[in-house]
């Protein structure tokens, strides 16, 4: 284990930046944190988390995929994929780290998505334990330990120091390169920190959120639940929950005519949108209730059914704090299938 005094944290950032791009949460002018490329003067945010999740690094909001040159009846397909270079994403929380696993199970299974894979291969994740989780946090419901995030490097922030522990080959390589700015450390302070976080986790309002009634094979139980009607009645059908969600991975593929060829790009899409499943001759999810149900059934039933019981939610709480009408997965979980959770 290594450590660095927080006062000198910029030395660490500088050392990383000397060899590759470093991204970390930085406060924006509205006071909210967003992942930003580090350069001198940028300060690591004190905020618990960013509004936008770090899924952007591997699955960007929009991404050019290929180009076509069209001449008369002829078409040329141009592979515009670029080689990724190593980069570090620093300050990722345990929930968001787990979200990468969830995305991996979609994008990396055969046939592997090369756009995602190359970025994932080159990204080095430094995860940081959460000292002060928010009232909107419920990662523990999904078996995530906010005190012990597992990424290439795990880090803990104590009052004056940052402790760093490598977990993977990539992580070891990174810490090795940072030996000049860090020093050898023992685990005592980290153990203390973990215990303290564990105590706080138990006091969170959503600490007892129960996931046991959900999971694969529960489609029949919940698909026709009468509660969907009320839960979805004021849903605006916007894509906020989807786009701030670290695990939502639905995308659209679209063409853009540049006047000098065609760029085919992909962009985030949302199952909440009315045209998501619309075809020329019909739409199998015509009402907002059906679209709303799809999003939550996917996270709580369909995804676990296809992925050894792992839920498609990590409890980051972004949808809880960002939904324009304050409807979210917590309310869905508590209300669905009777009110026994109250």
């Amino acid at each position: 284990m290594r450590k660095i005094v927080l006062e000198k944290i910029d030395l660490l950032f500088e050392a990383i930046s000397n060899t590759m791009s470093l991204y970390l949460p930085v406060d924006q002018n509205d006071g909210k944190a967003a992942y930003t490329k580090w350069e001198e003067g940028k300060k690591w945010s004190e905020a618990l988390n960013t509004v936008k999740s770090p899924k952007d690094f591997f699955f960007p909001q929009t991404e050019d995929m290929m180009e076509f040159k069209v001449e008369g009846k002829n078409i040329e397909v141009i592979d515009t994929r670029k080689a990724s270079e190593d980069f570090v994403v620093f300050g990722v929380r345990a929930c968001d780290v787990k979200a990468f696993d969830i995305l991996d199970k979609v994008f990396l299974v055969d046939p592997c998505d090369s756009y995602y894979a190359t970025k994932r291969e080159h990204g080095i994740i430094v995860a940081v334990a959460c000292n002060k989780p928010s009232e909107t946090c419920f990662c523990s419901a999904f078996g995530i330990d906010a005190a012990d995030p597992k990424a290439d490097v795990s880090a803990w922030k104590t009052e004056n120091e940052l402790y760093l522990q490598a977990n993977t080959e990539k992580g070891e390589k990174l810490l090795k390169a940072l030996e000049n700015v860090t020093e050898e450390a023992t685990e005592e302070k980290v153990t203390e920190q973990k215990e303290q976080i564990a105590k706080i986790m138990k006091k969170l309002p959503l600490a007892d959120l129960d996931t046991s009634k959900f999971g694969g094979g529960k489609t029949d139980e919940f698909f026709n639940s009468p509660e969907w009607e009320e839960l979805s009645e004021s849903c605006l059908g916007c894509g906020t929950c989807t786009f701030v969600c670290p695990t939502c991975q639905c995308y659209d593929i679209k063409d853009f005519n540049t006047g000098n060829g065609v760029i085919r790009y992909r962009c985030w899409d949302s199952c909440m949108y009315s045209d998501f499943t619309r075809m020329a001759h019909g739409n199998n999810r015509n009402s907002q209730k059906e679209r709303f149900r799809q999003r939550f059934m996917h996270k709580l039933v369909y995804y676990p059914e296809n992925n050894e019981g792992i839920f498609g939610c990590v409890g980051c709480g972004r949808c809880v704090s960002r939904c324009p009408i304050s409807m979210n997965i917590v309310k869905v979980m508590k209300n669905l299938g009777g009110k026994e959770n109250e």
Partner: protein
Amino acid sequence: MNNTVDTLIPQVGVITDVRIDTPDIKTFRVVTPDGKKAFDHKPGQCAMLSIPGVGEAMFSITSSPTNTEYMEFSIKKCGCVTEWLHQAEVGQQITIRGPYGKPFPVDDAFAGQNMLFIAGGVGLAPLRSVINYCRHYRDRYGSIDIVYGSRSKDDLLDYQEIIDEWSKDAGVNVHLTIDREQEGWDGHVGFVPNYVKELGFDTNKTAVLCGPPIMIKFTLEGLIDLGFNKEQIYTTLELRMKCGVGKCGRCNVGAKYVCKDGPVFRCDELGELPDEY
């Protein structure tokens, strides 16, 4: 960049023949620019065709895998991609990727069975592949019955092939029907589900259905009335697709993705899925 293949990046295909089947269905023959078949496939599988700048859409491969020279797609005009294709001429290049989806179990569950194919309208397109596959390996299957109906005689897909080839094959019975009386038609008149009941098939068959949702619903009921089990009946689904490989998230019915877990479903499996297709 990297040399990895990505299924989302298509290859170029050339339209080498356009056949006008009905007022709104054309059949397109597609090969690679060097004249080869773009890829191998199995009956029931699909391919993504696109016109850059217009869009990309999933179509079932109409030709049989036993055709090693080219692929065919019977396409009904109903959206922007299909409308564009209907205006395309021979020599036009498009892009093609695939094959996608789970095929009909032609070499296992279907092997040795008496086959009953039931199609309505453009629903014959995915079935033509498996029908011709069964005809090609004729000795691997028992009797073959084909019930096919459309709005009118002019709306019957592959009519020439049906008359000239299918109905002349030994052990293949073709039963055609159209919705309403029409001059020059002395065949059966009536909707497919009713015709199936009238024909009163023996239940020693494996049935394969494809057509508009309403036809499937009533034909399925008809077959059950005749004594068929859901385990003996197969159908194919169609939902909006973008990636074709179960990642873009839109074509699911419950936990199943039509693009990769389908489009072929056995009716008992389908019955376990939520009613959202």
